[in-house]
C-alpha cells in the first residue's frame, strides 16, 4: 500500500511538468497582444511609443518563449507567482481569494453528485424494470445529453428570477460570509455542476449493481440468512462501487473543468471564472497559474479517489493488481 502510494505520488512530478509546458504552449498561440488589453481604447491617445516600449520591457514580453517559460517556472518554485498584467495584483493574492470558492463548489458538487449518483443507481438497480427505474433512466438520459450551462440558465430563470427563491448568482450576501448563510447561493451551482456526473454515475452504478446482484457471492450471502438490506448494501453495493470508482476518477477532471462554465453562469467567483476572465483580458500569467492550480486540483483529487478505491479493493491494496 505504501509503495503504491509513493509510486502514485512520484508520478505527479512529470505530470505537473508536462501540464506546465502544455499550458505555456497553448497560451503562446492565443491571439492578442497583452499590452493592448492594458489600455482601454478611450485612453489610447495618451500612450507614446516610448511608454509602450517601457511597459513591454518591464513586463518581460520581449523575451523568447522558452526563456519566459523557465523564468516563470523558476519563479513558481520560489513561490513567486508573479503579477496580473491587468491590475498588477499579486497572483497569489488572487488565487487565495478564488481557490477556496472553487474547492467548496467542486467538493460539495462532487459529494452531492456522487451520493445522488450512487443512490439513484442503487435504487434503479433494485427496482429494475419498474416505473421508478424507467423514470430515473429517462432523467439520466436528459442529464447526460443536455449541457450543464443550459440547466444553469434555466435554474436561474426559474428559481432565481421567476420565483426568486434563490439568489440568481454570486457567492454570498454582503456581510454574511458564514457557510450556512451561503447555502442558498450554493444550492443551484452545486446541483447543476454535478448533473451529468450524477447521471453518468447513476447509469454505471445501475449496471454494476445488476452485475454484482447476480454474482454467486451475493447468493451465498443471502444463503447465510442476511437481511436484504445487508445483502444489497454490504455485498452487492460494496462490490458494485469498485468498477464505478474508475468512472468517478475519470469524471473528476470533467467536473472541475465544468467550473469554468458553471461559475461564469452563476457569477460564482472561483478559479473557473477567473480563468475565463483572464483569458478575455489576455492576462497570461493569471491564466497560466490558475490553469496550473486547476490541473493540480485534478491531480490531487484523482489521487485521493485512487487511494480510496485502493482502500475499497483489497486486490489493489495488497498489490495484486
Amino acid at each position, binding site marked *: 500500500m505504501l509503495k503504491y502510494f509513493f509510486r502514485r505520488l512520484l508520478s505527479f512530478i512529470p505530470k505537473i511538468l508536462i501540464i506546465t509546458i502544455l499550458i505555456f504552449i497553448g497560451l503562446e498561440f492565443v491571439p492578442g497582444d497583452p499590452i493592448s488589453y492594458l489600455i482601454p481604447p478611450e485612453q489610447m491617445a495618451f500612450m507614446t511609443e516610448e511608454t509602450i516600449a517601457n511597459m513591454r520591457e518591464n513586463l518581460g514580453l520581449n523575451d523568447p518563449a522558452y526563456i519566459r517559460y523557465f523564468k516563470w517556472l523558476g519563479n513558481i518554485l520560489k513561490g513567486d507567482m508573479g503579477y496580473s498584467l491587468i491590475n498588477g495584483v499579486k497572483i497569489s493574492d488572487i488565487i487565495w481569494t478564488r481557490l477556496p470558492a472553487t474547492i467548496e463548489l467542486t467538493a460539495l458538487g462532487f459529494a452531492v453528485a456522487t451520493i445522488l449518483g450512487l443512490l439513484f443507481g442503487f435504487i434503479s438497480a433494485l427496482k429494475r424494470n419498474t416505473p421508478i427505474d424507467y423514470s430515473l433512466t429517462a432523467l439520466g438520459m436528459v442529464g447526460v445529453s443536455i449541457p450543464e450551462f443550459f440547466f444553469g440558465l434555466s435554474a436561474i430563470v426559474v428559481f432565481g428570477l421567476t420565483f426568486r427563491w434563490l439568489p440568481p448568482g454570486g457567492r454570498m450576501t454582503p456581510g454574511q460570509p458564514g457557510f450556512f448563510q451561503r447555502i442558498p447561493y450554493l444550492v443551484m451551482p452545486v446541483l447543476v455542476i454535478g448533473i451529468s456526473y450524477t447521471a453518468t454515475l447513476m447509469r454505471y452504478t445501475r449496471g454494476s449493481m445488476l452485475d454484482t446482484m*447476480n*454474482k*454467486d*457471492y451475493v*447468493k*451465498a*450471502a*443471502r*444463503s*447465510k*440468512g*442476511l*437481511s*436484504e438490506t445487508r445483502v444489497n448494501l454490504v*455485498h452487492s453495493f*460494496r*462490490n458494485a462501487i*469498485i468498477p464505478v470508482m474508475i468512472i468517478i476518477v475519470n469524471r473528476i477532471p470533467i467536473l472541475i473543468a465544468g467550473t469554468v462554465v458553471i461559475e461564469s453562469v452563476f457569477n460564482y467567483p472561483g478559479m473557473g471564472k477567473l480563468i475565463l476572465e483572464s483569458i478575455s483580458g489576455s492576462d497570461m500569467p493569471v491564466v497560466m497559474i490558475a490553469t496550473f492550480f486547476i490541473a493540480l486540483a485534478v491531480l490531487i483529487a484523482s489521487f485521493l479517489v485512487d487511494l480510496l478505491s485502493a482502500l*475499497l*479493493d*483489497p*486486490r489493489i491494496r*495488497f498489490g*495484486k493488481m
Partner: protein
Amino acid sequence: MEKDYILQVKNLETRFKIGKKTVHAVNDVSFNLRRGTTLGVVGESGCGKSVTALSIMQLLPKAAHIEGGQVLYTPSPEQTLNLTDFKRNSKELRSIRGKDIAMIFQDSLSSLDPVYSIGWQIMENLRMHEKLSKKEAKEKIIRMLGELGIPSPEDRFKSYPFEFSGGMKQRVMIAIGMICNPNILIADEPTTALDVTIQAQILALIKQMQQEHGTSVILITHNMGIVAEICDEVAVMYMGRVVEFGSLLQIFENPHHPYTKALLKSVPVLGMGKDTELESIEGTTPDASTVFKGCEFEPRCPFAMKKCTEEHPMVCEIEEGHEVRCWLYEEKCKDDRR
C-alpha cells in the same frame, strides 16, 4: 416413519418467467431427506437440480417463483415447518438460512465475496445466528478452519479470497456452511470446479463433517462416481422431474428408468470391467421451455411407447423406497401416486 425425514420435498413446482415465456424448471419434484444421511441429486446440467436446491431456501433469482408444492422441514420431532409458506427473504426463512440449512455453491471462486477477509465472511454467518463475542466467534472460526485442514488458520483468518487456492476456498465455503452447525447442508456441485485430487479431499471433508456433526446432506452433482462414493439415497432428475428415487443400492444395482440406466452406462464406475465401453445417451436434451404432453425423455428413450407421447407417466413405487416415473412399470406399481 415420517418423523425420520428431516426434509420432505412434495410436488414442488418452480417456474421461471423470461420475457413472455414461462419455463417449467422444476415439475412435481418430490424426495425425502432422512435425518443424518446424504441424498444425491443427479442429472445433466440444466435438469433443474440446482433450481430445486435453491427452491428449498427460496434463494431463487427474481424471475423465478415457486408455484406449488411443499418443502417440509422437521428440525425436531415436535415441529414441522412448511418453508414454501414463508415469503421469500422473510424473517422466518432468514433465521433458517445459514443456521438450520446451509448451502455450498458450485463455484467457490465466485462464491466468496472478494472484498472481505474470509474470517469476516465466516464471522458474518456465525454472528448473524449466534450471540457470541467477537473473540469467542474468532476462536470458534479458527478451530473450524483448523478442522477443515487450512494451515495456520490464525494467520489465514485475515486473508482475502484471492489469496487462496480453489480447494482452500471450497474449504472456506464449507466452513461458512458448517460454522453454525446446521441440520442440513446443501452442496451444489461442490467439487465441479476443482481438480480430481482436491475433489476427493473435499468430499472426504464433507463426509467427515457429516459424521462429526450429524448433518444431513443434499449433494447435487452430475457425477455418478461422487454419488456412488458418499450418498445414501439418490434422486435422478431429468428435465425438471425426478425420474427415479431410491437408495444408493437400488439405483446402482437395480436401475429401472431408461434414463438412469443410460446415465449409469455413460459414466465410469469403480469396479467396472475393463472391456465395458461407455455409452452416450442418444439425442440431446430439449430446450428447457419445451412443453411436453407426455414423458420428457420419450424423444431419446429406446423403449418409448405410444402412451409415452400422450400422457405424463405416473410415479410408481416399485419396491420399498424406490420410485420410478415411467410407463414401463405401470403394472408393477405398488400404489398409484400419480
